[in-house]
């Protein structure tokens, strides 16, 4: 007979389940801190795609489509995009790419997973650039977005390493 979990156990589980989204919010805020390095300042918008991608692959139920939309909306409210709603759309598009390729990338060697992230953030970045350009009614300079993409690509292994450690420590039997 299965034992009913105590309140403490339920709270513990809830806390563990909120780790992926919590980490994503944390990364969003870290990107917003005044690092005061002009060349690195476009870091934030792309970094939030890292936790979205990672947890969609390894703990898809803890990174739901609603959570992704909420993350994008927080980014929009903090003003990282020129147009309200663009970051939400970017996050959702990235999420969709990750979900569609989940079976290919989950369990694949790290280098393939990394390539998957490059694909996902490229699609998300391209969509963002396109939407910004359409609403600005002109071709917006894509170079900053390209820089942002490269920074995200470099940051992915570091973040993935940290996430994997957290996953092993706190989310072994939490799905």
């Amino acid at each position, binding site marked *: 007979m299965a034992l009913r979990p105590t309140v403490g156990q339920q709270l513990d589980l809830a806390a563990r389940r909120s780790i992926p989204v919590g980490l994503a919010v944390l990364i969003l805020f870290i990107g*917003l801190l005044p690092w005061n390095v002009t060349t690195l300042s476009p870091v*934030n*918008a792309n970094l939030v795609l890292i936790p979205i991608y990672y947890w969609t692959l390894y703990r898809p139920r803890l990174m739901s489509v609603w959570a992704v939309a909420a993350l994008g909306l927080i980014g929009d409210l*903090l*003003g990282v995009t020129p147009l*309200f709603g663009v970051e*939400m759309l970017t996050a959702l598009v990235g999420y969709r790419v990750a979900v569609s390729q989940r079976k290919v990338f989950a369990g694949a060697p790290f280098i393939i997973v990394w390539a998957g992230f490059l694909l996902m953030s490229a699609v998300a970045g391209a969509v963002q650039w396109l939407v910004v350009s359409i609403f600005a009614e002109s071709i917006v300079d894509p170079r900053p*977005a390209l820089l942002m993409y490269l920074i995200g690509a470099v940051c992915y292994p570091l973040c993935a390493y940290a996430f994997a450690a957290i996953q092993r420590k706190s989310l072994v039997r939490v799905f």
Partner: protein
Amino acid sequence: MKQRVGSVSLAVAARNWTQRFAFVLLIALAFGIMLIGKADTVVISRARTVVIDMLAPVMNAASRPIASAKDVASEVQDLIALKDENARLQRENQTLLEWQTVGRELQSQNAALRELLKFTPDPRATYVTASVIADTSSSYVRSLIVLAGAGDGVVKGQAAITGAGLAGRVLEVGQRASRVLLLTDISARVPVIVERTRDQAVLAGNNSENPELRYLPRDVDIKVGDRIVTSGVGGNFPSGLPVGEVVRTADGRIFVQLYAQLDRMEYLRLVNYSLPGILMQDLGVDTSKSQEIASPSRARFAPGVE
């Protein structure tokens, strides 16, 4: 057993369907929000200021350790460069002392001439010094959040300056925090004047480090190193605020290096020149508030240039 497998696959299918439906719904919602944001900026602006206000204390606390770390790093750099710096400062001091003499002479001469002409001086400027608590710049936006809001006397449209020159202007004002749009943002436009030739132009941000001079007369003679200052046209900023200098010209396009070091800003001064400009009046901001400035504990007020 078969029945159970069937019900499980049905549950999975139902879940997938719900997820897909939610995805389509949320994408539609994102586009809807964009359209609303495009049509009605007031609602979005309010929502953003509310969020910034709520997060201001957290961001302020989080940005302190970074500021301290940067201070330590810059102190180490300073120590290394101490000798050269000292020599440079002595030379500079010599030059400045000479300028001081010239300045005093000009000041007394100016006072005498003003007396002769019955000249009305410009309104006194007041300013709020605010610390930078977040850098909300991304690929398509260049902006900062500072810890001073309507409660401290900040008003939309005020100039944000560093010791070196103009950095941007106040875009959104919350109760405790405000957003500053930097001169490098693609939507930033400032009326300027080339100091040497007195040619008027508009300094247009382009999301790169060097904004561009636009709408200059065709046969203009601009050289690298020419100083660019605000022209005061439009009434948002006073004339003569230092902005930057021409750093390069390419294919008829002229780029400006700003005096304000946008990558090293810990504090910004938000200056109120009490000029009735267009920016203060749009979005329904009450311009009369700009006159009533209280003196909060964390912000410093002082009279500026007369």
